[in-house]
């Protein structure tokens, strides 16, 4: 299971490089927070926290900002989404997709707040609204694939019946 998640994180990392070249409305599509949130939805809050940390840490290595900020943000958001998921016994597929979309957008907001705390002036970006909107929409599009991949990585330990039951 750990090897599968590691493979997914590395693959998502290089896909992130690819997609950052294509910027709809000037916004870079984010894959790693989507992966982290999917880990929380399928694998539960602790899984989301662990995958979120490593996905964020790997991403931070390539960014000029504070090392560890993405790790902190992704693990918190993925944990929160996973906790919400665990509070519901069964969840329709579309709700899972909405959760992933909201989680990814929330990660952008929390990152902006965290970056501001560390002196990066992230809140003063004039495109914060566009960033949240584009990331939310792209996360919703990527969510079905992300949730399937998360289910594959969890293997038999996927613990939330009712999610993607018709997948």
């Amino acid at each position, binding site marked *: 299971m750990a090897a599968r998640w590691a493979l997914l994180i590395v693959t998502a990392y*290089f896909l992130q490089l*690819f997609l950052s070249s294509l910027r709809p409305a000037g916004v*870079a599509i*984010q894959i790693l927070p989507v992966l982290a949130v999917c880990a929380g939805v399928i694998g539960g*809050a602790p899984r989301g926290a662990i995958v979120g940390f490593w996905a964020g840490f790997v991403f931070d290595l*390539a960014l000029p900002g504070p090392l560890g900020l993405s*790790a902190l943000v992704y*693990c918190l958001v993925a944990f929160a989404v996973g906790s919400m998921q665990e509070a519901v016994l069964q969840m329709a597929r579309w709700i899972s997709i909405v959760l992933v979309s909201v989680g990814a957008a929330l990660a952008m907001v929390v*990152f902006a707040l965290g970056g501001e705390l560390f002196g990066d*002036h992230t809140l003063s970006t004039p495109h914060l609204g566009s960033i949240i909107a584009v990331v939310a929409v792209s996360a919703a599009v990527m969510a079905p694939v992300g949730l399937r991949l998360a289910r594959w990585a969890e293997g038999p330990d996927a613990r939330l019946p009712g999610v993607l039951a018709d997948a």
Partner: protein
Amino acid sequence: MAAPSRRRPRFTIAVMVLLSITVLTIDGKNLPVVRDVRRGAVQVLSPVEDLFSSITRPVRSFFGGDGDVRTENDRLRAEVEQLRAERITDADVVERLRQLEAQEHVSYLEASKLPTETARLVSGPFSNFETYTTLIDKGTGSGLSVGNPVVTNGGLIGRIASVSTDRSVVQLLTDPDLRLGIRIAETQVLGDGRGAGADQPFIVDHGISLTAQIVEGQSVITSGLSRAIMPPGIPIGAVAKVTRDQSNQTQILEVAPGADFSTLNVVQVIKWVPTG
């Protein structure tokens, strides 16, 4: 006592948060090992970046509109920027020569022939919040170092903030944390300014007295004096607005940058480092 199934999530999130904060704290101390790890990661990634950039270039051009029109627009913008910079430099040269001649000094504006390196912006940034930085495709392998000014035909873009073998992170002039000394070319008045954010003018908020004769349109260049993180004479832009601050007995200047930050592609890096 909480059931084990409830303790595990709390324990896990606590450990992950503590680990994240530890990494942030270590990174904040700017240890050489951390810098080396990040530089190593950038070096490993740079061939992958270049590959993805070349793969996506046709798609990006497609979504960007008609290639011929854009190319022509870029050429015309570059010409306009160059003309603006030449006008600023000429005004500075004329005024300094007049003052020097008035004092019977035999000295001329040194067109200091500093070595430069041409660089191109890399396909990043990868994050949506790298508003005040950009990445170029040259590094220590080309003789670049931290502190080198980065310019275009239009004027100052920023300075190199960190560098690896074949990549450099450029801190842009729009960064509110970037302060530097300026000079008004037409009057030789000195001041201090800083970036004010993306799509915002450069703000000169220190050093310009109320008696200084500042008008809109005057040229602003680097002074190379106070906070000498730049060599003298690099065009920054032109005064767009003057506000008189009576309480502080200063004038606040809004400077429209000469360089067009929205169309950055090829830049020049001046191989000059601050001595202070």
